[in-house]
């Protein structure tokens, strides 16, 4: 990727993110935040490459710790978001 293409992706994704989020009702702000937080754990795929590459002990160690931290972020983030959202929907179902 050239720098220009990378920057293009960056800017377009920022605009897209703003469009996607700006109309979310306040009720969903907490699950939205924890869910989007889980998505930011995408850095995990970089960590996997660092941990699995046979370069030096230091880079493998850094990669391993990064995999652990990012996985906590991803797995914990999606699970806890699901937990919160299940409470929202069950409340809705009981009334209707």
């Amino acid at each position, binding site marked *: *990727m050239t720098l220009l293409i*990378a920057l293009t*992706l*960056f800017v377009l*994704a920022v605009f*897209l*993110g703003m469009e*996607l*989020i700006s109309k*979310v*009702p*306040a*009720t*969903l*702000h*907490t*699950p*939205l*935040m924890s869910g*989007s*937080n*889980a*998505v*930011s*754990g*995408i*850095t995990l*795929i970089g*960590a*996997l*490459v*660092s*941990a*699995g*590459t*046979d370069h030096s002990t*230091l*880079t493998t160690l*850094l*990669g*391993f710790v*990064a*995999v652990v*931290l*990012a*996985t*906590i*972020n991803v*797995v*914990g*983030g999606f699970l*806890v*978001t*699901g937990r919160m*959202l*299940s*409470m929202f*929907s069950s*409340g*809705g179902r009981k009334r209707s």
Partner: protein
Amino acid sequence: MSAADVTSVAYLVAAILFIFGLKGLGRPRTAPRGNLLGASGMLVAILATLLDRSIVDFRVLVAGLVVGSAIGAVLAVRVQMTEMPQLVALFNGFGGGASVLVAGASFLMVVDEGLVDNQLAIAAALTALIGVVTLTGSLVAFAKLQEVLSLGGFRGQGVLRAVMAVVAVAAAVMVVVSPADTGWFWLLVGAGGLLGILGTVAIGGADMPVVIALLNAFSGLAASTAGFVLDNPLLIIAGSLVGASGVILTQIMCTSMNRSLFDVVFGSMATGGVVADADEVYGDRVTSTSAEEVAMILEVAERVVIVPGYGLAVAQAQHAVRDLMRTLNDAGVEVVFGIHPVAGRMPGHMNVLLAEAEIDYECLLDMDQVNPTFAQTDVTIVIGANDVVNPLARTDPDSPIAGMPILNVDESRTVVVIKRSLGAGFAGIPNPLFAADGTLMLFGDGKKAVLDVVAALLNS
């Protein structure tokens, strides 16, 4: 197709899933599916990455995935809903920390191979700085919210913070000028880490929603800049989507508190203005009431609005409030909740706490929805909220909270305020609402007071 092509296509699929996932999270009905789409996108991305040719040893990698999944799952299942802000802060911090380590490892590899260029060095320096500030800032926010440490500002904090910022910027410049000396990179990480601590340590509890939203934006941004280091489009896209959403939430929180981001991070509460004397405001005009009297007023009401504040969560009164709502509904009284954007410790926190108590989200109205309805409301019950219902924000341009958007509860016919005492809220100012003609004060613990009212309603 080569393995690299398969990975690229899979990353595109993952990016699309993330976009639909975030879109889904925007509506209550589609939110659970949105979350699943996001998780599927992550799974696709992980599986595609495992095809990468440069991965030669899967043992370390699997060990990391297993350990991380176990810790993440335990944290997610065990957490209480009241502790959600600190958990999200912690996860944010871990994401930021992972980005620093990924950028560090990748930077070291490229330096060893002698292939480093300015673009990569700049991206690595940015990731290190943003990521490590996210990590240590989030850990401080976690410690403060969990109340494991009572942290506060100290003398010379501002100076130290400025010094650290200069050191961090200087180190970042040196990373770019002289990338082969990797010591600069680690100096940058160290200085950035201290900067994150110094930047968050003095921020008060009321400002936590802003801090968490901001750190959320930072964790996304760190993932995005890590994408520039790794030359990975999926990291750039997903990271900036999250970064943008974090920025928007930060903006919403700042507007709701009438505070600029600068004030939250650098200043304390606005100090200007004349703070009225509490005795002068309250005098002997405060009317105290009993649970029985409140029950009598509620019985003849047609529409009741409940305004919860963080005090409700502290008193663990969510379920008691739900009982009150059901008792009133059974008696034919319409009940809705009016929720200020900063009612909890993070954006939307109060809604989650009430949803946990099985209160339908359709009954949870935000400020813009509920404010026009107060004039047609018979009784408004304020529980554990103070500054967000203080009419001084509207009427007194000299007040520290002047201009802050508030819930106009004083427009309803009767206001019942359930509160332990006449003590001030975060803003430290008296609230004329408590002494207003239509206001009755029900002093006591939030949970007990609400249960007393329910009992009185059932007995009558």
